[in-house]
């Protein structure tokens, strides 16, 4: 519930993503900060941020499939991979970027539908198995295809983005490139949340039997959930391809899929904000620990380094556990509660 003093004159006002003026200002400040960031940061941070934006896109997709529609998917990284290979292949034909990115999204979406079909019957965690199949088949199929299709073992190299006369080459270019796309997808993800389509996904997640009886075509909705989620994965894949300039199957592993899922859950699977918080939180912890460990090794304090990196794993796992124990419904939920408490203080609400 919103605190006293905030009321809406129109339904449109109520449906806004940023409901109050203050929220709008904060968001504007955030965007401005991100735009200005390269002025103040080295390429390492830019690289991390670029990577984080891409991860964010993939996790938005997962938010749609898993968070909104409740269809377990542990193959998101394979779907990102499909997007990446599509983009790489198409870039070879010299297509412009504004064709390639949507095309990568659509191809990924179309392929995901294939793996979504079992969702008609298979439910709950068992669905993990069919998506796991997608993840396992992805490298095998690419490797088994003739070399000149998707590069087989070698992988494909990617032509850099050409926008007008400008060819994007530097990390700075790709920072802005992914920032823009991530911003667009952020708006899209939040839009889904407040639309008819999003509600139908959530209804299917919460109670698919009832949803069917209450007029929501459940099978179609589940398929669309995978399709929509894979659109995001496809864009993330295209960005990966552009940023890495070279795609091979080995970059899209089951472990990465599990990580995507982890970020979503730590952040809170039930809101797009959760995706953002989860990605930021885990990236921060991961990079922070890793950076410190690298520094220590270079300083020669722990010459062989083995122990140190073991400790970073322990700390990372520990951080996630603590986040979960502290707030099993995800950081987004905690954020919500804190905000409510702050606005209502000192009166608990009834």
């Amino acid at each position, binding site marked *: 519930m919103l605190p006293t003093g905030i009321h809406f004159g129109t339904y449109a006002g109520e449906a806004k993503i940023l409901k109050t003026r203050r929220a709008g200002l904060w968001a504007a400040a955030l965007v401005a900060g991100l735009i200005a960031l390269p002025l103040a940061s*080295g*390429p*390492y*941070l*830019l*690289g*991390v941020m*670029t*990577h984080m934006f891409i991860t964010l896109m993939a996790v938005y997709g997962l938010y749609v499939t898993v968070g909104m529609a409740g269809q377990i998917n542990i193959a998101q990284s394979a779907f990102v991979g499909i997007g990446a290979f599509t983009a790489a292949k198409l870039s070879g034909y010299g297509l412009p970027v504004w064709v390639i990115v949507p095309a990568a999204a659509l191809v990924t979406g179309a392929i995901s539908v294939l793996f979504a079909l079992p969702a008609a019957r298979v439910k709950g965690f068992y669905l993990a198995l069919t998506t796991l199949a997608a993840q396992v088949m992805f*490298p*095998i199929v690419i*490797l088994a295809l003739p070399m000149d299709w998707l590069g087989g*073992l*070698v*992988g494909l*190299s990617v032509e850099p983005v050409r926008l007008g006369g400008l060819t994007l*080459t530097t*990390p700075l270019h790709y920072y802005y490139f992914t920032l823009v796309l991530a911003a667009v997808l952020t708006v899209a993800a939040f839009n889904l949340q407040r639309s008819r389509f999003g509600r139908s996904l959530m209804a299917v997640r919460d109670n698919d039997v009832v949803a069917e009886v209450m007029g929501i075509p459940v099978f179609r909705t589940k398929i669309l959930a995978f399709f929509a989620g894979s659109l995001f994965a496809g864009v993330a894949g295209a960005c990966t391809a552009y*940023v*890495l*300039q*070279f795609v*091979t*199957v*080995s*970059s899209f592993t089951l472990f*990465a899929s599990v990580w995507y899922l982890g970020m979503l859950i730590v952040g809170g699977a039930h809101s797009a904000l959760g995706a953002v918080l989860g990605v930021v939180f885990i990236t921060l912890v991961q990079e922070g620990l*890793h950076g410190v*460990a*690298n520094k220590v*090794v*270079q300083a020669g304090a722990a*010459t*062989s*380094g*083995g122990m*140190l*990196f*073991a400790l*970073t*794993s322990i700390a990372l796992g520990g951080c996630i556990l603590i986040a979960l124990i502290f707030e099993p419904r995800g950081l987004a939920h905690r954020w919500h509660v804190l905000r409510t408490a702050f606005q209502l203080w000192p009166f608990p609400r009834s």
Partner: protein
Amino acid sequence: KDYVISASADYSGPFADVMPNAMAGINAVADWWNKAVGDKLGVKAQIKIYDMRYDAAVVAKTWPAILSADAPIAHLGFGTPDLVTLMKRLPNDKVPMIMGTAMVGLVWAPDGWHYSIRPTYSHEFAGLFADIQEKSGKKLRIGAISTQNQAGFVDQVNGIKKLAETYPDRFEVVDVQWAETSPVSLSSNLRALSSAGAEILLIGGTTAQVIAAAKAMEELGLSIPIVTSTHNGLYEVAKGIDLAKLNGSYAAFSFAPPARADLPLRDVFEANKKDGSWGLITAQAAAQALLALRMLEKAVAKVGADEVDGEAMRAALLDNVFTEEELLGALPTLDFDDTAPFPIGDIKASAEIVQDGKIVPVGDGWMSVPALEKW
């Protein structure tokens, strides 16, 4: 003047077990070189190790930072993830990358900035196979076990197929069996291989595969020599199985066998090490660092102590021949050009064999590798 040479490590991924020794090798050689050579030239090489977890995504993320923070004059790469993520951009970044692991055929491209002290895995195996074939005089019937979804492992087999294709009267690949990286049992696979008539078994994948193959042979009453590589070599295998059971098996590579009687690099390591112990991977990493340092030496000679950069380093690599002596006996004489990412000309290999439960070098010189076209 200080120059940074950055290095990839894998402390938290699949090669975490060998990493401390590998990095100890690099550090020890760098320390020795700084004292023995650098001081005289007025330069100091500083090694900066980054944990890349053997993960292409981590490499991609970390590399820009290395570039800006350290401006390295060379990078010591580790494994396929470094190769596939960096090889396309190194020419722009103007940083040569020196690998200690062998290449895989899929990065065999001209005009690269990535170079290895070793040729491809397949070249190394081919050197050993040729040696064996020559001694026996008969056509060598090769069987292989590999893993389907690991590009590098598949590539090893492809190279050997190319070898058989090129020299049809000397070699034949009778069968390739696909297995998991940690198989439960390889009995069926070995039965198939033996009925296909394999006389020697190429297992360039994992240590677990080698051990499983040895167990399966014991079970089936077979004894086919196994050829392993460095990352799953005999020292690794020896941790899990009595070496006597592997009598006659090989590890093929192309730097000096760490147990070679007379090996100056080993003495350098032992004298300068802070931690770690001598072994195959230590030798490999030490040799890798040594080549990079020798490049620096030649670059200084060419452009002066203050002007060395990535380009000068690459030029030093391409314009000079590095003698076995300069390389402290760790490597054969190496010559590079821009047609291939590994030494050209007469490529050499080396190997170890298990005899009476002990690992000994095969011969005490280098083996010649038959010429191979790119596959």
